[in-house]
Every structure is written in structure tokens, then in C-alpha cells.
């Protein structure tokens, strides 16, 4: 039995508690706990989906499904994506870019119009700085240059002027898993830091980056939250990424509302470090992009998942996947500072290989478990108490 509709408003917030309604999402600390409040003043926990893209349904073997069921991008968004998300109890498009081809090529983010017309809450991602660790076409700007300010102003004009008044817009996120490579910034700026001054050199770059991006957004949108970068989780295995520079947490404070963390691990593995980072940034935390994967026709048991210890995300089957989802989301909510989670991803494709639907548009069994849990999300997370 579900009670969705009885205790959730049109955004997906919990109607059992009421705070000030500002018409937009905002965060609030109550009794030491961070809450995300929706435009109606109700508490809101993000159960989002990351990586939502249609080319996975346009191969020779499945294009007939796209054409017969949807036939256009608009119909695919409404009848495939949003309809499914709502059926499964997910309330947010957490990020739409998807890994689509070898070499870690990613699709473009949805457009502002697509987000705005989707009828579901969303977190658009702005490409201020393409320094994702996976991005082989990365660009390290001189963040002190006028051209970087102009570039950020363009990005803000493109995104924020269209979305500044939309209550379904939760807020803006930036770069996924940024690689703060001091040598590449140094090359772009044409300046080499003196020996012993590297940390300060990088701190100034990070501070400048967060200031310019923040100011650009605020020039055109004073209403919405800033999620900032999806900070890359550090790994416990030697081949995984190291912790981000400490300056990321200290310098974002003035310019970012939420600490977004992109960490592909079960919660127990990351918990202590996330605690530490949250304590440093003093922000509510959004787990922006992770998932558990079960074997399927493309992701066989002998298939390596990814580098960097992501094998911990592998579970034995779809049932276990559903239980892993519940275990993680409960533990996250129980921290008192995590305000949501973006699940990776929507539909299986040939490079990522897993999703909540297979590439023939059939939902995996995990979605039944998720739907049942999400229907009573706030009760299941103890947010009704």
C-alpha cells in the first residue's frame, strides 16, 4: 500500500510538516539537522535520477520501441522518463548528461526548456569548467581572465534567465568529479607557483572559480540554491582518486549552499569521510550520483565495473539491489545533514551497462522495491517524527 498523494505535495515534499513557504527550495537547520524545504514550505528529501538520455533507445535493435512508444523527444521526456520516475517514486532529475561512448564521451545536458517543461523537480548542471576527471576533452581556464568571467556570464544567461522563476528548479550544480590539477591550471594561466607556495596558488584558483561562478548565477537568479561541484569521493584503493584539496571545502563556503558529493561506494565506506567534509564545509550534503549494479545481459559477472574500487557497488541480483538502495538511503538520511541522493542512472546503455530500465525500455525488478519504499519515503526515513 502506498500513501503517495496523501502526505506528499505536487513537488514531492512531505505535507505532514510545515515551514515557511518562499515559493522556492531552500535549506534550513532545525534542531541541529539540515532540511531541504520545498516551495510550499514542506520538507523534501531528494530521491533523484542522474543520467537520463535518449540515444540508448535509438540503436538498430531498439529504435522501433522509441518510434512506436514515443516518436519525439518531448514524448520520450513525458511518457518514458517522467512517467516512470513518478511511478517509481523518484522526485527529481538530478543530472541528465550520460556517458554515451568510449573515451568517456558524455551527451549534452538537457536544455533549460526541457527541464522547465518536464513537470518534475530538477537540478540542472552548468558547464562552467570542464575539468571532470573522466573528461578527455577537459579545458583548464585561466579563472582570473576576463574571458572566464564572460564565459560564466554566458552560462548563467543561458541557464538562469530561463529558470530563475521556476519553483521546480531546486538549484544549480556544476562540474562532476573535478580534477584540481595544479599543473594544468598553471599551464592555462602561464604562471608557475614558487616552490612551497603550491597550496596557496591552488587555493586562490579555487576561491576565484567559486566566486566568479556564484556571482554569474546571482546576477540572473537570486532564487535558487547552488549545489556547486559534485566533489569526487576519495578512494580506499591505491588506484582510486585521492581526496580533493582541502581548499575546495573551505573556499566554497561563501559561494555554495550545498556540498554535493559524487562517491561510488556503499555508505558505510564513505561515512566517516563525508562526516569530516561536512564538518569542514558546514553545509548540508547531497549525494549526487551513485548506484548499485546487479548482473544483466551486458554487465556480466566477469565484467569489471570501473577502476577505483567500484566493485563494492556490485550486488548479486535485482532484489539485493533494491535492499542496497534502502539501506543506503536510510543511513544517509539518518546523518541529519544529507538531504538527498541521485541514483545513477535511468536506462541501460552499451557503455554504462546498467540502469533502472534495460535498453528495451523494460524496468528492472529493483524498481518495484524502490517504488514501494519511495511511496512512503518520509515515513520510511523517519522524517514524519
Amino acid at each position, binding site marked *: 500500500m502506498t500513501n503517495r498523494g496523501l502526505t506528499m505535495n505536487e513537488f514531492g515534499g512531505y505535507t505532514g510538516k510545515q515551514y515557511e513557504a518562499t515559493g522556492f527550495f531552500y535549506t534550513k537547520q532545525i534542531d541541529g539537522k539540515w532540511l531541504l524545504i520545498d516551495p510550499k514550505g514542506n520538507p523534501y528529501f531528494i530521491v533523484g535520477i542522474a543520467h537520463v538520455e535518449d540515444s540508448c533507445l*535509438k540503436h538498430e535493435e531498439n529504435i522501433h520501441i522509441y518510434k512506436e512508444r514515443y516518436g519525439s523527444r518531448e514524448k520520450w521526456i513525458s511518457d518514458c522518463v517522467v512517467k516512470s520516475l513518478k511511478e517509481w517514486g523518484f522526485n527529481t532529475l538530478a543530472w541528465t548528461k550520460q556517458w554515451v561512448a568510449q573515451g568517456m*564521451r558524455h551527451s549534452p545536458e538537457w536544455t533549460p526548456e526541457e527541464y522547465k517543461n518536464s513537470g518534475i523537480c530538477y537540478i540542472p548542471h552548468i558547464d562552467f569548467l570542464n575539468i571532470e576527471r573522466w573528461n578527455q576533452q577537459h579545458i583548464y581556464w585561466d579563472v582570473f581572465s576576463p*574571458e572566464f568571467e*564572460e*564565459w560564466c*556570464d*554566458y552560462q548563467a544567461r543561458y541557464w538562469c534567465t530561463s529558470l530563475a522563476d521556476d519553483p521546480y528548479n531546486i538549484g544549480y550544480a556544476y562540474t562532476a568529479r573535478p580534477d584540481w590539477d595544479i599543473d594544468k591550471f598553471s599551464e592555462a594561466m602561464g604562471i608557475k607557483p614558487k616552490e612551497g607556495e603550491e597550496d596557496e596558488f591552488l587555493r586562490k584558483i579555487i576561491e576565484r572559480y567559486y566566486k566568479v561562478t556564484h556571482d554569474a548565477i546571482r546576477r540572473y537568479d537570486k532564487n535558487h540554491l547552488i549545489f556547486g561541484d559534485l566533489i569526487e569521493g576519495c578512494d580506499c584503493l591505491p588506484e582510486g582518486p585521492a581526496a580533493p584539496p582541502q581548499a575546495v571545502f573551505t573556499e566554497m563556503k561563501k559561494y555554495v549552499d550545498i556540498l554535493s558529493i559524487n562517491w561510488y561506494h556503499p555508505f558505510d565506506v564513505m561515512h566517516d569521510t563525508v562526516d569530516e567534509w561536512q564538518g569542514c564545509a558546514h553545509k548540508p550534503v547531497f549525494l549526487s550520483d551513485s548506484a548499485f549494479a546487479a548482473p544483466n545481459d551486458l554487465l556480466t559477472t566477469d565484467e569489471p565495473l570501473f577502476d577505483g574500487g567500484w566493485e563494492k557497488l556490485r550486488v548479486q541480483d535485482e532484489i539485493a539491489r533494491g535492499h542496497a538502495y534502502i539501506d543506503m538511503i536510510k543511513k544517509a538520511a539518518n546523518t541529519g545533514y544529507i538531504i538527498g541522493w541521485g541514483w545513477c542512472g535511468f536506462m541501460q546503455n552499451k557503455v554504462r551497462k546498467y540502469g533502472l530500465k534495460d535498453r528495451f525500455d523494460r524496468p528492472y525488478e529493483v524498481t518495484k522495491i524502490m517504488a514501494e519504499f519511495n511511496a512512503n519515503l518520509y515515513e520510511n526515513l523517519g522524517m514524519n517524527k
Partner: protein
Amino acid sequence: MSGISPYGGDTSRKFEATGFFRLEKADSSWWMVDPDGYAFITIGLNHTDETNLKYEHNIDIWREKYGSRENWIKGLTKEMKEWGFNTIGWTSDYISGDWGQALDWFGDPINLGHSMPWTVSDYKKADMPYVIQLRVAEIEDWNGYPHFPDVHSEEFEAYCEYLGRSICQDYADDKNLIGYYLVDIPAWLPHASGRDFNVLQGLDERTRNIKVYDVAYKYYETVTKYIRKYDPNHLILGDRYNGNKGIPKSVLTAMKPFVDVLSVQYFPDNSEEGYQQMKDDLSEWQQLCDKPVILADIGNFCCTKMNPNRVSPLNGQAERAQDYIHSIDKVLDQPWFLGWHWCAHVENKARGWGVKDPYDQPYDEFINPVKDFNHKVYTKLK
């Protein structure tokens, strides 16, 4: 005066109608033919980007006049047709960075940021002929941080397949689409940043010019294979070559089996000698590859109140109009000439010029003579 077809073609010159834009060579002259079978000169407007009207200094104008992207598109197409433009050219605009006093493609690297392209849904709302671009590789001469792909790699093949599958499939049945451009001013000659295709790095000029053929051949072969796989209906307009920098003969030879049109960006000097030079260059390149030609990006500028740094020999908007007319007139009657796409729409703070001022008003002294010229094109070709 010629009658005009719904697409903007010349109803007095009829060929077979196939339902899509195509090419026809008749009596040694190349023609573009519209879906209804009428001769069509593509008269395009480039860089139609909504964010140029969303600065702090003009967003109120956007809100009052348009208020939505759909209304802005409708307003744009109405005006374009009034001015005799029949094609939405490449929509991305130059929105950040600068090129100093004089643009030197072989000098210090520049980095000019470009805006996001239009979507399928945008073009449906526009409901008039258009072109789109596939950014096959990030190797533009204006890109300060280019990435040169390994065109022989599985990654490149997979990316081209993705572009075909995700983009061309959506456009395959659209009658308004003329065809696909590839990269804007790709660095087939050495890039100012010093970066290059791996296999070409460190080669002397002569050897590089020979070896670049292999890279270009594989590049064109791969991307056009996937365009054709997902869309057999539309023209492949090819790279938008940087005519002012030059085009290697080997690249024109390499593209010949795969591309339908020679597309060239060319900003001629604002003089009779400049127009003649442009005509001579286009003619030479056209003969090398035996393709008809679109001037994919041609424009001019003068200093304005907002952009006093855009200095040129042209003194004011009226002189810009005359330059437009004389430069196009120089090539209009050439048997290989298919049309031109003019740069740019609304004057912004980065590019610094357009057919409209920063407050969405057309520069009347420019647009009125241009409008007359555009509307008389088919008559002039009689």
C-alpha cells in the same frame, strides 16, 4: 519578379521534387533544389542566439517583447523572412573572449567561447529551412584548448556513431533541414595553440601537408558513414573551412568522396580587391574538389557605441550594407555558388556586431539595402 516557393525557392526554375533539399547540376551550373523542386539560393543568418538578448542591459527587452523562447523564435523567423533571409544558419554564437586588434590565425592562440546550439524542438517551432552542425572534433581555430582525436581509434568511431544515432536520426525526415555542417573552421592547417593530431606532430610543413590527407580521409569517411547510416536524406555540407587561413589541397581531395558541398567561412577585405580575392580563392578550391560552394560564414563590422573596438575600413552601417551587397554580388552568378550565411544577428558584447543593435533594433541603414538585395536575388540570376 519571381514567385517564391514555401521554402524560399524560385518557382520560375523547376527541377524534380524529391521531398528533401538536394543538388542538381544543369548546363554546367550547380543548383540547390528545395523539397518542392524549385531552385533555391540559401540566404542564411548565422549566430541566432537568444542569450544575446539576456544580458543585464537588454533582458527587459526580451521579457517585454518575447517572454519565452518560442515567441523569440517566432519573432526571429518573421523578421528574417521580411529581410529576405530564407535559412537559419549555424546558431552557435561567439559569446566570450577576444581576438585583440587584428585576427591572425597563425599568431597567438585565441579562445572564443561559443554558445549552445538549437534543438530539434526549436527548429520545429521555426518552421523554415535550416542547417545544423555536428561537432565531430573540438579542433576549431577559435578554440584555445583544442583536442585532436585519433581518427583511427575505436573511440572516434564510437563517437561518430553516437552523433549519427543521437542527432541525425531525429532530423532524418525533416523537409526543412538542408544538411549537416561538420566542424567550424577546423585546424587542418597547424593550430595556433601548437596542438595537432598525434600522427602529425613534429612533422615539417611539407610532410605534414601530405600526411594530413590520411587523417582527413579517415575523419570524413567515418563521420559521413554514420550520418548516412541514420539519415540518407540530407546533404552533407562538410566542414566550414577557414578560407581566410587557407585550405590544404590534400584535405579538399580527402573530403571529395564523402561530402556534397564545399562550405567556406570567408571574411573578404572590404574592397574590390578583397571581393575578387575571395572569388578567386573559392573558384580555385571549388575546382580542386568539384563541389558547389556555400559561403558558410561571411560578415563585416564597424565600430559601434557598445563595441568601439570593432574597427574596420567601413564607416558606419550604410557602408556595411554596401560591402554586403558588393561582396555577395561578386560571386552570385558563379555556376558553383549556392548561397551565403551572414554573420551575425544581435550585436553582443563579445562578437560585437550584428544586423541588429544590442537593444534588438535592426540597424536600418544596414538592413534596408540588404533586404532589397536579398529579395532581388532570383531576378538577378535570370
